[in-house]
Structure formats: C-alpha cells, structure tokens
C-alpha cells in the first residue's frame, strides 16, 4: 500500500536534497519577500524592484552553486527518495534554464525600471506576478511527472493572464488578458482531460514509465492505440498552447499586443522557451524509451506543425502596422524553428536528439537577447512618444536616438539570422541538429526553415528601412541610461556570441547531454533484476549503477568536448 500519501509521509529530506532544492526555495522566498515587503517599507516601485533583484541574485547564486555541484555529481533526482517517478528533477538542463530565466528576469526588471517604474503604483503585485510566473516556468522544465507538469503550467499561466491585463485602465489590456485567459483555460482543461486518459491507460503519471510502456501500445493496433494517441495529443495541446504552435497560437498576437511591452518581452521568450524545453524533455524520453519506430508518426506530425508554425508566423508578420504585433508574430515563427528541433525522434545514436536539445538551449539564450533588445527598444521608444509602436514611429531613429537604432538593427538582423550576429549561429546549430538526423523529413525541415529566413527578411527590413533610410523629422529624444545600456549590451552580446560562439555551444552541449544520463526510473529498471522491494536497500544498491552512469556521462563529455 504505497502511493502518494505513503510517499509524502515517508519524506525525510537530507541537506543535500535541500541544497538541490535551494533555487526553488530561494525563488519562493523572493516571491514572499516582494509580497510582504510593502508592509514594512512601503510601495515604492524602485525599492520593490531592487528587492526583487536582490532575491533573484540570491536565487541565481544558489542555482550556480547547484549547477557546479551537479556538473560534478551527475544528475540529481529531486525531492523524493523513491526512485520511481521524480516529481522534480534538478539536472543541469533545468538549472541552466533557471539561470537563463533569472538573467532574463533581471533584464526585464531593468527595462521595467527605465520605462514604467515611475507611473506604476502597483509595483509589488506586478513583481509578485512576474516572479511567480517565472517560478512556474522554472518548474515546468524540471519535471517528468504529468501532475507536476500540470501544476507547473498552471502556476506559470495564471500569473501571466493577470500580468497581461495588469494595466487595468487599458481596454486593449483587458481584452488581451481575457483572450489569453480563456484560451489558456480551455487548453488547460483539454490537457487535463488527456492526462486523465493517459493515466487511465498506464496507471501512472510518471512520463518515464509511460514512455517505457507506450511503445508496444502504439505498435499494436486497436482502440487502445486510439485512446492513448488521443490522451497524449491532448497533453501535447496543453504544451503547444504555451509554445503558441499553430493552430494554438491565436491568443499570442492579441495578448502580446495588448500587454505592456515589458510583459510582452517576458512572455514572448520565457513562456515559450519553458514550454519548448518541457516538450523537448518529453520528446527525448519517448525517443529513447519508446524509440523512433513507435514515435515516427508523431515526429512527422510535430515536423508538420513546426513547418506550418514558422511559415504562418512569418507570413502573418507582413504588413503589421504595430511593431509589437509584428514581433509577436515573429516570436511565433521562431517558436516554429525551435519546434522543428522537437521533431527529432531518432535513437540511432542518441547524440542526435541530444544536439537537438543543445541547439534549442543555445537558441533560447540568443533568442532571449534578441527579443530583450528588440522589445526593449520598442518599449523605450513608446515611453517617449506616448505609446505609439506603429512602424512609422521608427522613422529616422538613427538620427533621433542612435543608441536605440543600432541595437535594434543588430537584433532585427539577428532575428533574420544573418551573420555577423548570433542569431545565425543558433540557426546553424538548429540546422546542424536536423542535418545530423539525416533523414528526408529533416532535410525538408532544413529547406523550410532556410526559406523562411528569406520570407522573414522583408518585414524585419521594413523597420530597418524606417530607422535608417527614411526620416520625417520627428524630434530627437534622450533615453534613460539604464535602458540604453540594456539594449546596447544585448546588441553587443549578439556580435560577441557570434564570434566567440564556442562557449555557448559547448555548454549547451554539455547540459543537453545530461538529459541522457540514466534517470532514476531507468536506474530502477536496471535494478529490477535484483528483484527487491525495499526502498532503503535500493538506495545503497543504487551506487554502482550511478557510478556507471557517471562514467559514461564523462566519456560523453570527453568525446564531444574535444
């Protein structure tokens, strides 16, 4: 008579486990801090932001600490001593993503401070929602468990709905949040329904086990397969909603346009990236455990969705008057690019999907920089011209504010994916991953992605043309130093990451490779031969297997490092 209750009752965490969990704890702590601080020190927005930054810094510290630890000791399987079903996983992948999130969060905060800190009176709530959704996303990428996944997604979503409509006076904001919320609620419900079906069939919420058993079912015919396919698909819908993959993207442009630009910046990268990494995790699990034979069809479907997504995103971005909306569509397109990596269900030698994951990681990093820069410029411009984000507002920007125009140029060209900007490198990593898979399907994806680059050129260049080639004598203006610093750093980083792209690549390779070290459940299977039920003993017995796992993980790093 085990089960959830039993597990919870028998939980007695050790220091190491606490340490492993410390980032989440610190994060939650920051949340509480920002929520409660106003009672003590008032609602000054800048101090609130400052507090938030401090909290985030602490979190980042712990994250790095844990990363350092886990990099040495291989992956930790999170909070539960039981080796079945890790509710939370603290492997380098998730930690790395948490770090990215934190950095991005800092960036967004700085942007917020330099744009709308002054007229904002509900700063604490704003940060509660911001940090809260961030925590939700952080959880999303570190779970194998369907239940935890649902909780995390909701945790990430609910604050997002609110924060989109945070500007209560604004009609568009209200509408945006309504759409976002309704669409989110629906997809969440559908996902839960699918979850129920999956649970009904496999009797567990642990994706590792599900993926281990799903193969035969899908290979075999009959209604079961239909049921499982339906269930898994409904789950996928929930994730696809976060990624805003076609046809679940409709909320995206409207919500992003209606929200404040900082919020748009945040959502456009963080929620999509989190969803993507979650999807990548699941895909990798299925690819490794169920194998391409069973999942080939799924690969095709995801590939098609990816292709359609980036094409639709790029095409829809045409002729948008509002640059924010245009960038929203472009974010759909980029989600499509990254989704293409998720279509790689190849087991042949597992490095394939591993490089897919690393490509996505690198892409996320650079994509964060690009969007932070681009949206940052938009936000800074809006703050000066009364919220006009129409394309005409950019005309003559090189004269009016060169410190905005130049980074904007870098970011846009990088979004197109042209050297000498990092956007090209990451696109290359993506193509490289697809090329490694080396099948017709993936070559087709290569072609689609590459030609989408061409399509996207036109609408990005429209902004460039306005900024550099046209000038209708709008007044020049000064921009806050912090904001200028932010966007220019982003622009500069894009060039730096192009020329010194090696560290980025090798790190994302390394973290991605951690995915493929045997997870707890696999160890459990490895130990099932010992046919013993005592969890305590299992703990000791775990050692040799773990060692072996670390061994080959080392070799893995060794060979790709050189």
């Amino acid at each position: 008579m085990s089960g959830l209750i039993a597990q919870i009752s028998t939980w007695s965490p050790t220091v190491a486990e606490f340490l492993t969990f410390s980032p989440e704890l610190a994060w939650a702590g920051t949340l509480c801090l920002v929520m409660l601080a106003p009672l003590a020190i008032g609602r000054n927005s800048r101090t609130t932001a400052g507090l938030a930054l401090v909290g985030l810094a602490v979190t980042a510290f712990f994250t790095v600490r844990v990363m350092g630890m886990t990099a040495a000791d291989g992956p930790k399987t999170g909070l539960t001593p039981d080796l079945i079903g890790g509710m939370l996983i603290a492997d380098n992948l998730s930690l790395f993503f948490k770090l990215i999130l934190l950095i991005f969060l800092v960036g967004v905060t700085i942007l917020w401070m330099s744009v709308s800190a002054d007229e904002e009176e509900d700063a604490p709530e704003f940060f509660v929602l911001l940090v809260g959704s961030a925590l939700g996303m952080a959880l999303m990428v570190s779970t194998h468990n369907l239940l935890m996944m649902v909780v995390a997604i909701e945790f990430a979503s609910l604050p997002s709905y609110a924060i989109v409509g945070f500007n209560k006076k604004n009609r568009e904001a209200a509408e945006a949040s309504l759409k976002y919320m309704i669409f989110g609620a629906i997809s969440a419900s559908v996902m839960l329904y699918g979850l129920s079906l999956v649970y009904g069939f496999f009797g567990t919420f642990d994706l590792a086990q599900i993926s281990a058993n799903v193969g035969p079912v899908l290979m075999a015919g009959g209604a079961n397969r239909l049921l499982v396919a339906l269930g898994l698909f409904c789950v996928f819908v929930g994730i696809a909603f976060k990624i805003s993959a076609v046809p679940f993207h409709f909320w995206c442009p409207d919500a992003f346009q209606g929200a404040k630009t900082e919020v748009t910046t945040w959502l456009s990268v963080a929620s999509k990236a989190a969803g993507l990494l979650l999807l990548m995790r699941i895909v990798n699990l299925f690819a490794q455990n169920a194998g391409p034979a069973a999942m080939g069809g799924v690969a095709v479907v995801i590939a098609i969705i990816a292709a359609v997504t980036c094409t639709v995103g790029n095409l829809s971005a045409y002729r948008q008057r509002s640059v924010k909306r245009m960038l929203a569509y472009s974010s759909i397109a980029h989600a499509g690019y990254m989704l293409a990596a998720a279509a790689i269900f190849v087991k042949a030698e597992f490095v394939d999907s591993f490089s897919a994951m690393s490509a996505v990681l690198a892409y996320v990093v650079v994509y964060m920089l690009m969007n932070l820069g681009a949206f940052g410029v938009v936000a800074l411009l809006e703050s000066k011209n009364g919220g006009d984000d129409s394309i005409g507002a950019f005309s003559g920007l090189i004269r009016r504010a060169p410190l905005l125009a130049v980074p904007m140029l870098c970011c846009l060209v990088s979004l197109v994916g042209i050297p000498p900007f990092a956007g090209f490198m990451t696109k290359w990593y993506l193509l490289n991953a697809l090329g490694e898979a080396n099948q017709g399907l993936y070559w087709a994806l290569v072609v689609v992605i590459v030609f989408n680059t061409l399509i996207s050129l036109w609408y990005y260049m429209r902004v460039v043309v306005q900024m550099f080639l046209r000038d209708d004598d709008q007044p020049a203006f000064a921009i806050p130093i912090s904001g200028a610093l932010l966007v220019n750093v982003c622009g500069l980083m894009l060039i730096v990451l192009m020329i010194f792209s090696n560290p980025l690549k090798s790190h994302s390779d390394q973290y991605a490779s951690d995915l493929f070290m045997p997870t707890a459940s696999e160890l459990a299977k490895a130990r099932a031969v010992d046919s013993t039920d005592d969890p305590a003993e299992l703990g000791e017995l775990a050692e040799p297997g773990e060692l072996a796992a670390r061994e080959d993980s080392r070799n893995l790093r060794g060979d790709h490092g050189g």
Partner: protein
Amino acid sequence: MDQHLISWIVFLPLIAGLVALFVPRELVKWVALLGSGATFLLSLFAISTFWGGDASGVFGDAYGTLHHVERASWITGKSFTIEYFVGLDGLSLPLFVLTTFVSLLACLASFNFDSWKINKGIKAYFFLFLMLETGMLGVFVSLDFFLFYVFWEVMLLPMYFLIGVWGGARREYAAIKFFIFTLAGSVFMLVGLVAMFFYSGNAVAEYPELATSYQTGAPLVTGTFDLIELSTNDAIQKYFSDSATTLLGLRFAPMMFIFLFIGFAIKLPCFPVHTWLPDAHVEAPTPVSMILAGVLLKMGGYGFLRLCYPIFPTGGHFWASTLAVIAVISILYGALCAMAQTDFKKLVAYSSISHMGYVLLGICVMTKTGFQGAMFQMIAHGVSSPMCFFLVGVIYDRAHHREINRFGGLWLSMPRYGSMATLGFFASLGLPGLCGFIGEVYVLLGVFEAGNSGPMFPWAYTAAICAAFGVVLTAGYVLWLIQRVYLGEVREEYKGFPEATGREMLILAPLGALCIIFGVLPKQTVFDFMNGTLNLIVDQINGVTQMALAAAGG
C-alpha cells in the same frame, strides 16, 4: 606578423574603420585612406612568396597547395568543427590583390564626400566601407565553407547601407532589391552548406578506405567544411559524384551544384537574375559602384571556381549546356540592353552583365583555357569597369545628370579626361593590347576547343560563335556611347567644365596603366600567378569525371 599576414590584411580595414569612428570628422577620410592603403601594401607582400619562384614549386602538384595558411579551430560542436582556415593560392591571390587595389582607389574616390548630395554621417560611411572591404577580402581567402559563408553574408549589410543611405533617388528600392536578391542566393547556399557537411560525413563513413585527408594524411572521420578537402578527398568525391546519392529524392551532385550556382549566379550576375545590378549601380555612389563592379561581381566567378566545379564536377557536366545557354544569353542580351540605355551608368552596368557572361561561358566548359580566360576576364573587368564607373562619376559630379544624349563634345572641353575615357572604354570594348581582349579571346578559344575535345559539349561551337558575335555588339554600344558623350561639338553648358583634377587623375592613371599592362604582358602580370592552380583544378575535375564515368560504366 608574418605568419598572420593574411589575418592582418583581412582585418586591418575593420580596425581602421573602428578607429575612424572615434576620430574627429575631418580626419576620418585620412584614416580610411591610411587603412586601405596599408592593406594594399601588405597585400603586395602576399605576392612575394609567389614572385619569381618556380611554377611547380609555387603551385605544387595537386590542388590545395596554399600560401600564408592560417588554420585554427573556431567553433567546436559535438559533431562538427568550424575552422578559421585562410590561405592564398593562384585562384585567390589575383582577386585578393585586386580587391585591396580597387578598395584603395574607391576610398580615394570617396574623398569628395562633403560635396555629395547626401553628405551626412561620414564616419558611418567610411566604417561601412572598410567593413565591406574586410568582408570581401575574407571571402577570397577563407577556405572553410562556413567561414566563407559568414564573410559572404558580412558584406551584405554594409553594401545595403552604402547604397541605401548615400545612394541616388531610388536608393531605397535599389538597396532592398540588392539585399533580397543576394540573400535569396545565399539561402540556397546555406542549404548547400548543411547538406555538403553531412553528406561528406556520410561519404567518409561509406568509403573509409578512400578517405585519406590531403592535409593530415590520416583518413577523415567526420564531415568537413574544408573546401580543399571537399574537392580533393577521394571518398567525398566518389560519394558526391555517385548518381545513387540523393537528397530529397534528387541526385545530389546536380542539386547541390545548382544550389550553389544560384547563389553565385546572382552575384555574377547572369541573365535571369541580373536585374538587381543596374538598379544598384545607378543608385549607388561612385565609389560603391567601383567596388560593386570591380570586386563584388567577381565573387560569383570565384565561387564557381572554388566551390561549384571542384566539388561537384559531375554537376558541372550535368548543367553545362544550360549554363552555356545562360552565358550566351547574358552576353548578347546584356550588350543589347546596354545599347538601349540612355543612362550612362546603366549602360556601363549592363555592359558588366555582358562581360560577366564571358566568365560563365569560359567556366562552364571546364577546360584549362576556358578557366584561365574566365579568370583573366574577371581581373580585366575588375580593372576596366571601376575605371568606367569612375569616369561616369567624374562627369556626374560636374553635370549632375547622366543622360547620355544630353552630353557631347566632352573630349574638347576636358581633353585629358577624354583621353582616359577613350582608353577605359576601349579596354572594356576588348581592344587588343588592352586588358579586355585577352579574356574574351581565351574564353572563345577555350569554348570552341571544348567542342572538339570530346562528345561532351556538342553545342560548344555554336556557343562560341554566338558569343563571338558579342564583340560586334560591344563595339556598337561602346562606340555609340563615345560618340554621344565625348565626340561632337562641345555644348554650351559644358564649355566651362574643369579638367579632371589631380585626385581624379590619380585614380584614373593607375587603372588606365593596368589596362595597358595587363593587355601587353598578360603572362607576367596575371597568368603566371594563377595558371598553376587553375590547371590543377581542371586536372582534379577531369580525374573525378573519369572516375564517375568509370563507375557509371562498370
């Protein structure tokens, strides 16, 4: 310094450009001149290792003998290694030096920046200009496909802004047109990049016994970006040229060939994809036109010779007839269009299309004579066309229009300038004794000979003869141009035109001198420095072709 010569040459302009951003406004042009001048001088050092040596010693006995090589690993992925791999051989050296030379003169030609209609942002102008030079030099020296592609794209933005910001009335249109066309080409190239890398990987996996690397002597284990490796490694060549190798259901070699070809053909440019050129030229400021015509167009031809043909010889055979047709059309069609123009600059632009047609024609038959002719044609055109464009610029500065029919008698009002103009235009007309002639004749002879060399090119005779008719048309539009602009009674409004200034003569004189020297001593000045490599490439190609035929036969 010495072992990093190439890197210095390539990045010196960029450094100068960065410096130029931070010096006072009136010093900018001098910094730029200093930078490009130093670059030119250094590039002359690069020749020294070729000079006077014994041909076989310099060019080696196999394709891939390089000078001033630098290679270091740049980006190391799990499954791929991108190298910073640069070097010079007979293929790149002439174009490399040409680039530094033309850039220097173009920089000099930009010295009247302040008198331009749009004279804002001189710092940005020279920065972009020098960045462009770095990009061009990089393309010519980089032997790693990825690096090549990066430099190739790096040229894009500066050119876009140089045309789009400092250009003429329709600059925006011309700039975006240039951008879209070029990017369209490089998109195809990018697909080729990925595919070639992984297929080379498959190749070495397929024939490990053949995969001996030219460089290490050890067998290759992974795919490679090394352009020399791609074209000389037996395993890769065997696998690429195998008709069973397919990508997306299409035969690999022809498909990849045409993918790369499109990219380069747009730059060249040849017939169906040439329309960006006249607009770009007409709108671009004079120095940019010089660069565009003098160097950028050559990258197309260079790409053919460096990538398309050595790596995919069978693809070359597959498409030969098509390319010949395109080439001949470009020659005749470009000449006819040039004849119809009333805009001086547009006429010269179309003449470039016509001349580049000879390059494509010479290359597509894959004979030594043809290759040498095409290459020489590029060098010659790289000297004569900047001259012509600058000649146009000189009178544009004075008359502020380019309507051919509104000129006349300029030889009387500006005798020195008129004489230089005659020289320049006769050079591009292909008059014997001037540079334009040798390339054309080599190409024609090479193509005609290809017809006799085997059953491969039955159409070569026709192609050669049609192309030969181009010389008549060329004479037609050039002479008609000279008559309308320089001859005839001098018009009232041009009576007072000042003679070409010292600066202008300083730009025209070297170009004119080279026009003559290349025409009189082609061997000592050009052929000796490149034939070795070109011949080796052709041998390489023939070897692979034989192998492929044998494989197809048996």
